[in-house]
């Protein structure tokens, strides 16, 4: 019961690797320096630079892309807990993103104009609707999502892994559809249907109102949220719960024999994963200043999965790299690249339409040739290749 995952590991490498999570001061320092450097760059320096350089950044790496990428990082870290740590394939992560987003829509806008509740919000007091402070909504959204994670997980975690994937996919389809059709559920307007809820309230930070274009300050908020998720991921991973997850991922049967409570640990994985989905959802709603049901498509779940797989399942830093790069390619890189190529060669190729090929290709090639991802986690690498030389599986050459 004490340390199941370490016992299961043959070498001492695993122990050392786990303890790496406790070495907090290093990453916190590095992360803070990088985050502040980027902030200073975008808040102060970029405007002072000559036009050519600032235009380059405007085209290839605008501040809004940076912020959006950070939202992806937050969600990808949550999915990483479910897929990378606990080894449960979740194909419906977009559901949590959507629920988080609608929490922001419900509690930070004029949407429920029947009531007039103001708690710590920057919105003028005479404005109808529920207006809670951004931080409160963040918390509420995360908790609601965590609860949904448990609700979704509880009845389904007894299932085999691939069935679980399908059930999560089903939820990932149902919940956005409920929001999409939710204009009139028994006469009640739950979500404003396809019109979505817009705008949401400004974030209040130290008595300052952050409008939709205060990207630099929002960047600071998002980057702190991402840091929070990194912190949570690393801390839990080193603790008992994290070791239980790794044990389940590596061998569920062995883990349960060693006394790891399967159901509770898996539910916790879902809850923590969903928690970050909620944070990401609220953050994204404030980023785009609204929630729109048709954005929450299956593709988002797959893109998040591609981020986790590309970066290296289970490795926080790998997932961050994967999330940043794919989010950048998706939002700016591919269109900007296409624009450059089209204007240089005089062609008219619709580059953004290639993202299907790109994400499909990433998933396939990573699975075929580098299953452990770009920045692999050493433990996972062992497991993923362990099966290659065992003879107990089906088929074969």
């Amino acid at each position, binding site marked *: 019961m004490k340390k199941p995952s370490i016992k299961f590991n043959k070498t001492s490498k695993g122990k050392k690797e786990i303890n790496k999570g406790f070495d907090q001061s290093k990453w916190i320092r590095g992360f803070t320096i990088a985050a502040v450097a980027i902030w200073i760059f975008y808040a102060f320096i970029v405007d002072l630079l000559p036009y050519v350089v600032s235009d380059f950044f405007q085209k290839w790496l605008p501040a809004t892309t940076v912020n959006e990428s950070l939202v992806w990082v937050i969600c990808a870290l949550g999915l990483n807990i479910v897929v990378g740590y606990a080894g449960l394939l979740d194909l419906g992560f977009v559901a949590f993103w959507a629920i988080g987003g609608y929490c922001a829509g419900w509690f930070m806008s004029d949407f429920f104009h029947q009531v007039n509740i103001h708690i710590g919000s920057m919105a003028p007091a005479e404005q109808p609707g529920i207006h809670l402070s951004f931080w409160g909504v963040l918390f509420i959204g995360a908790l609601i999502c965590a609860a949904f994670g448990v609700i979704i997980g509880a009845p389904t975690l007894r299932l*085999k*892994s691939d069935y679980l994937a399908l059930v999560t996919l*089903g939820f990932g389809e149902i919940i956005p*559809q409920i929001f999409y059709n939710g204009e009139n559920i028994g006469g009640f307007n739950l979500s404003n249907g396809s019109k979505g809820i817009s705008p949401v309230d400004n974030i209040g930070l130290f008595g300052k109102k952050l409008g939709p274009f205060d990207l630099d300050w929002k960047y600071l908020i998002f980057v702190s949220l991402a840091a929070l998720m990194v912190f949570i991921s690393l801390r839990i991973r080193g603790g008992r719960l994290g070791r239980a997850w790794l044990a389940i991922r590596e061998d569920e049967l062995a883990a349960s024999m060693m006394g790891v409570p399967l159901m509770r640990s898996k539910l916790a994985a879902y809850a923590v994963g969903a928690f970050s989905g909620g944070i990401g959802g609220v953050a994204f709603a404030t980023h785009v200043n609204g929630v729109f049901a048709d954005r929450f498509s299956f593709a988002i779940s797959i893109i998040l999965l591609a981020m986790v797989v590309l970066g290296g399942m289970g490795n926080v830093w790998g997932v961050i790299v994967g999330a940043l790069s794919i989010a950048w390619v998706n939002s700016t890189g591919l269109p900007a690249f296409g624009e450059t190529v089209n204007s240089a060669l005089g062609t008219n190729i619709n580059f953004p339409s290639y993202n299907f090929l790109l994400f*499909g290709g990433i998933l396939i090639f990573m699975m075929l040739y580098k*299953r452990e991802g770009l920045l692999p986690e050493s433990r996972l690498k062992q497991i993923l290749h362990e099966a290659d030389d065992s003879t107990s599986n089906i*088929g074969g050459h």
Partner: protein
Amino acid sequence: MRGRVKAPPFRIVLPEIYQIYRRAVTIMANSSSRFSARLLIERSAASIIIGLVFFWLAVNLVKSPSQFFQASVIGISNGVLYALIALGYTLVYGIIELINFAHGDLFMLGGLFAATFISVWFGQETPSTTGYGVFFLCLIAVMGFCATINVAIERFAYRRLRRAPKLAPLITAVGVSFIIQFIGIRWNGSGPRTWNSILPAGEFVVSGVHIPYTTIISFAVTIPLLILMTFIVTKTRRGKAMRATAQDADAARLMGIDVNKTIAFTFALGGALAGAAGLLFQQTRGVTNYNLGYQLGLIAFTSAVLGGIGNLSGAVLGAILIGLVQGLNDGLPIGLGQQWSQTVVFTILILLMVFRPTGLLGKPMVEKV
């Protein structure tokens, strides 16, 4: 290590493992009060849900019988289509325990191929005798086309991952699905495209219920295909090899069965059926879209699960039932309406997973250890 008791030879499922699991479940249910309480809750919840469904059907039947039967006809003709796709899922799952995520998209590709074949290459736009000839030619061509693609996918993507952890082939299948959708976008454009059907457009009326000719043609194509496939699986040497591989690939290899070839053949069979479904869909609905495969694939997968995945007759039964549910929900006066159909199907999927993951005809299953 796999538990191996004696196996009845003519099943594509793995009964001996299920028997062990069933025994385990019975023991657990008898020994622990928590388990039996849960079973009780599940049973009662399931009966309440089924009771409500029957109540809903009865109310609608009394209110407007003709509408009820009309919706049923539409539902069943959808269901036949789903059956063809669901069989592909169930065949592949039966033999390598992979949820072939890309299967629905293969169906979509079949539809695109059929549209191109009939309307572009042969220039057939209206019903005519040549048109019917082209239709049958296209049926063969599209089945061959989709079978080839499915075999290629198996060869290049799934075969290498047969020994890998479960997560790997599943993620690969999702990737393949995305790539096929990309081909669909290139081929078809990013929006839906409508086509003229070469099938007769009329319908006949049986006591107030309209039955289109296309429905009859769907049946006329599907039923022989289903019979043919059942014959291949149950009566031929290849079918026997398939069932042997499904039961135990290693033992099958020891008996001299070429496992790779057999699995490829299974993919070919599933692909051919998906191709036929693509042609039928394209001709009866006259629409192609790159994301059709994803939507219909999930519905078909739900059908396969409803019937009991790995079970061939189960897939057909499940598909007809899902088609019916969808048709009834769309067409009945008291129903949730079309916009909720997808949600209803997914809810069924989730409820099934929770209450009866083995489906209607399937045997209890457990993960191989």
